[in-house]
């Protein structure tokens, strides 16, 4: 076997700094930095969350021990009910986002000139330049009793009394979630469709495939992993972001993030950790199901 690599004789004795920083030294460890990062900032916090969730609650903090009281408290109080409602609202928000956002992604992919597609998609980043708090709060003057929407509908005679169901209600929370997270569905949908080669659409057109069949039998199946990824992103954010139910929800509206937050405010740290653990498990389960159904490794693979 040749000892010459890239024109350099590697059998020749190297100086100390080459040993330390060369291919056999620190250089080979550079590739492990992401692993270390993942362990430090993802795996460890999640592991600690699980461990702390079984600690004993003290008056102001917690101490090592093993108790499932926080979990028992979660499932025997109304928190579990609130959690399920939160999942339901988040699922509705993800579904509505799909219904609105995915057709936009399809439109951009199929009807906008290839050179302009990425620029058009980037336009959907613009709302993220504005603080989430401001964006959500700005919906209050629009959806309120004396808001823009109600005044408009009254002025044109569609309604005679202000609609109160669109704000401070479950519907208000869904509207807020959709407005906040819609771009995620557009991005994920577009990325998934970008992986579909153009000739697939061209062949379908040549064979006279109707628009509905094209959408149902070709676009949706091919983009399914991307749609699922976008949906999970929206679902998880809607579950965790406390801002939306706080500002747009009805009396005492909560989501999973807010339930955990309220436990922290009450200095019940094991309970907050238990709720977070349940959120993590929910997400893992969701990803597992998604992977079994759609093979999520295909999300970024080109489809030929």
């Amino acid at each position, binding site marked *: 076997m040749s000892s010459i690599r890239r024109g350099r004789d590697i059998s020749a004795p190297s100086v100390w700094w080459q040993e330390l920083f060369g291919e056999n030294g620190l250089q080979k460890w550079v590739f492990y930095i992401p692993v270390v990062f993942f362990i430090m900032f993802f795996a460890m916090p999640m592991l600690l969350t699980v461990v702390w969730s079984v600690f004993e609650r003290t008056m102001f903090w917690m101490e090592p021990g093993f108790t499932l009281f926080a979990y028992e408290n979660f499932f025997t109080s109304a928190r579990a*009910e609130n959690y399920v*409602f939160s999942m339901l609202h988040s699922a509705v928000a993800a579904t509505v986002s799909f219904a609105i956002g995915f057709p936009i992604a399809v439109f951009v992919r199929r009807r906008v000139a290839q050179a302009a597609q990425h620029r058009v998609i980037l336009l959907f980043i613009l709302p993220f330049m504005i603080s989430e708090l401001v964006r959500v709060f700005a919906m209050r003057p629009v959806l309120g009793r004396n808001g823009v929407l109600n005044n408009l509908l009254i002025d044109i005679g569609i309604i005679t009394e202000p609609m*109160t169901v669109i704000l*401070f209600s479950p519907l208000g929370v869904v509207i807020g979630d959709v407005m906040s997270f819609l771009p995620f569905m557009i991005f994920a949908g577009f990325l998934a469709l970008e992986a579909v080669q153009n000739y697939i659409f061209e062949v379908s057109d040549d064979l006279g495939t109707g628009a509905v069949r094209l959408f149902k039998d070709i676009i949706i199946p091919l983009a399914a992993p991307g749609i699922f990824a976008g949906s999970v992103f929206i679902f998880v954010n809607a579950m965790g972001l406390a801002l939306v139910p706080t500002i747009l929800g*009805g009396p005492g509206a909560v989501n999973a993030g807010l339930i955990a937050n309220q436990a*922290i405010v009450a200095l*019940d740290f094991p309970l907050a950790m238990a709720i977070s653990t349940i959120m993590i498990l929910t997400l893992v389960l969701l990803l597992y199901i998604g992977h079994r159904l759609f093979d999520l490794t295909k999300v970024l693979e080109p489809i030929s």
Partner: protein
Amino acid sequence: MNQSEWTRRAFMYTAASGVGAAATIGRAPNVFAAGDDALKIWANPGVHQVGSKDWSAMAAQGGLKLAATAKSARADEAIQKMVVGDGNKLFDAITDNGGGMEDAMASQKAIVPLDTSKIPNWKNILPVYNEGGLAAHTIRYEGKVYSTPMISNADSMAYDYKVLGFHPDSWGMMFDAQFKGRVALQNDFGPTLTNMGIYLKETGKIDIESPSNMKPDEVKAVCQFLIDWKKKGQFRTFWDGFQNGVGLLATGEVLLSSCWEPIQIIANRKTGDKADIRYGTMKEGHQTWNNMIMLTKGGRARGRDELYYKLANVYLSPWFGARTLAGLGFAPQMTGVDEYIKANPKDFPPDVQARVLDILTRKNNRFAVKGNAWQNVFPTHMRAYQDWWSRLQAA
């Protein structure tokens, strides 16, 4: 105070823990940049500072240097920082709620007892703090004074007089059918359950021994009462955060709201002639609360006692009391404020005097109601409060 000032202050007042924590982290270096001769305080600038846009007027009044770090109003944040965090290394003095926080901090040895003889204005302190009972307890732990009160209030109900045409004097008005869907409560089990407990106790609907510290079956009864009304659609929402509370009243979304007095003041300013938002006196009583400043264990170890006493002296001066009353409508903690206001027409012109003294009179009326109950940050049966609040949320 102009609107831009208010927005900044309101933002700080309502900042969530993240904002508070970020502010703490972001501004921590400034604490040390101020030098060793400054008193390092962790305080809420929106509420605990008067006289100028920064802490300079407070510092000048006390004859000391102040290095302040912004703090939110969250109890969990303060406890974590001071009991299990590095609060004692960073801060010589901190501000927080009375009626629980001083007990929590003192029991964990995060704060130290005070020598009130070193605070000349202690002689001005409201008599209620020296008469025993719950008010006196809010600044003491095991009989020793651990904190200096700076502001207080009796939380009540705001209403739009222009629409109502009368002045409600009972919490019961919130459960009147004519206001269905136009009522808001604070999204916090502490003040909301205490105020509702006061109402239900004083009207004889539920037997409650102490609305400040209810037993589990009492908490359950109060929450079930609220759940019934929630299911009937009586409440529009539960507000959370200052601007949220202001917005509900200012836009006419609700006509009645249990809230802090500054919310009513700002909502009324925002509405102009379109509404007339007022703050009532409830005959059943109100949750009363105070804010206080404490000397940390670290502050004492660094020999900051004298600086702390200078600042505490400012907080108990009519100079501070008059300004906090005129600004955000908080109750002064010392006697002699009305005389001070009348004696300083340059700072308090006749129209301002009339407005401020009116606030003070109404405030005194609220404080005089027999059924009032002091805020209790850590009730004995905290778990029951948490669990039943979650049931109310789920209903």
